[in-house]
């Protein structure tokens, strides 16, 4: 399991690191470009929010650039797809295709099987986050951009907690449906809804309260990179992930499994 999913996580993480390397590589050019500076000044705040820039600053500040580009929408999309598909492959796909029959025919309890799958998911996420932050640190060393190293560390811990929560409810749907298609559909739709609510909450101050009802609203990369320590959101997301995993464990241990 570790071998199978680890390879996939490593591939995704390598792709993301190279993507970040490319983005950081072009930063000196972008930050000195008058056109980009002018464009970012002219953009309305609501549009900047949609793209993940939470302060009034544009791309002239490295932190806002990294928050928008390296941890922005493309990164979220890739992480979301990778996490949901991994969680699906760990339970629903195995049940759907019959491979789970071998695991469950051994004298190893269902909870133990699920715990292994959670460990696979968690370690995959850790590899992806680790390589992302190493890629950013490496790129910054390469292009000699001074940064607060620990701020980036705090940010990946927060992002890890966010995607652990995404993976945990995806595992829960995987355990509930035991079939690939509905499990992926519901997990993706729920993630998309959370994301849309986050974007919506940023459009206008009147809707700001909505961000409390979406896990994406708990994560503000730019603020963390600018020095905020996100203890509460990190603990909250880890707590949610624990609840989802416990629910998945309860359902997986009690449910009829048709393999």
């Amino acid at each position, binding site marked *: 399991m570790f071998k199978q999913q680890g390879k996939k996580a490593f591939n995704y993480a390598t792709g993301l690191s190279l993507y970040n390397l490319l983005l950081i590589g072009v930063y000196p050019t972008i930050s000195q470009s008058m056109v980009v500076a002018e464009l970012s000044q002219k953009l309305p705040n609501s549009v900047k929010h949609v793209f993940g820039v939470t302060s009034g600053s544009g791309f002239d500040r490295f932190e806002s650039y990294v928050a928008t580009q390296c941890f922005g929408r493309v990164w979220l999309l890739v992480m979301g797809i990778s996490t949901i598909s991994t969680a699906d492959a760990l339970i629903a796909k195995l049940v759907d295709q019959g491979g789970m029959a071998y695991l469950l*025919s051994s004298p190893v309890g269902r909870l133990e099987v699920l715990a292994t799958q959670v460990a696979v998911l968690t370690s995959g996420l850790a590899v992806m986050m680790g390589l992302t932050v190493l890629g950013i640190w490496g790129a910054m060393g390469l292009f000699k951009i001074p940064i607060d190293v620990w701020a980036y560390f705090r940010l990946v811990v927060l992002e890890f907690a966010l995607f652990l929560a995404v993976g945990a409810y995806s595992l829960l749907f995987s355990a509930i449906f035991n079939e690939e298609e509905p499990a992926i559909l519901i997990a993706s739709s729920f993630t998309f809804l959370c994301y849309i609510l986050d974007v919506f909450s940023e459009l206008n101050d009147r809707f700001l309260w909505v961000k409390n009802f979406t896990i994406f609203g708990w994560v503000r990369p730019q603020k963390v990179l600018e020095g905020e320590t996100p203890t509460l959101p990190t603990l909250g997301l880890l707590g949610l992930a624990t609840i989802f995993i416990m629910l998945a464990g309860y359902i997986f241990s009690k449910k009829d499994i048709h393999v």
Partner: protein
Amino acid sequence: MINVEGITKLYPKDKRKENTELRGLKEVTFRVDQGEVFGFLGPNGAGKTTMIRHLMGFIKPDAGFAQIKGLDCWKNSLAVKALVSYLPGEMNFLEQMSGLEFLNLMSGMHGDRPIFRKRRDALVERLELNLKQSIRKMSKGMKQKLGIIYALMLDAEVLILDEPTSGLDPLMQKVFIDLVLAEKSQGKTIFISSHMFSEVERTCDRVGIIRNGKLATVEEIQKLRQAQQRTFEITVADEGQVQILRERGLEIIAVNGTSLSIEIKGDLNPLLSGLAQVKVMSFTQKMTDLEEAFMHFYEGEGRF
């Protein structure tokens, strides 16, 4: 060793009044003694796999219970699985692994006893399988062999085999039958689910016949074999010899020139003594399929 008492499992479809085709099981009861090979026969969709899922503790019965060595298969599923080795009907392995990696993983999950490796090596030699090959690249037959190696290497007291010879060539089917008979001689209890009469005919002591979710009967294989109707396609030298066979009182169901189709139920001796009187040019046996065999068997006893 295996005790199934009134197992009922109804799926949502089964609970609808207009539905007459049961997908689950209804009040299935049977026993399998220690050292016995028990065949569980029935057409596809009759409930064979649902029964196995109960024995393996994958699903919970609505009513009744299944026990292996006195342990409830749902409530004590871990203890039951320590006694049981299972060959699933669908050969869907963890495909990115090689055969060897898969067997090592499963061996570890079953406690990794030294005998597993010894038995594995002997089985690999017997079934001629390259374990280094990736499972993804294996043919259906090769995957079936891998499944058989997995099931037999565990040296379990009880073997539960779902359609074990599907995908195997005739030579390997024979090897499999020899392996099952060897396990039986060691006192293992074996439960084989199948829709192929020939698969269980050579290995089983008794057969349970399931149809539409209900156990129609449990019979000794000898009795079923006697009741099985067989059709022989025979060509003789000339038409005069066809007449000789007619006079022997055999049930000739079709004649085309010098070719005949003869149906025999039970004892073969009348046919053999008839054939001794003529010059046989060709002789083939057409086995009746399982459903047909059952129908003939039960028509006689009026159970269907």
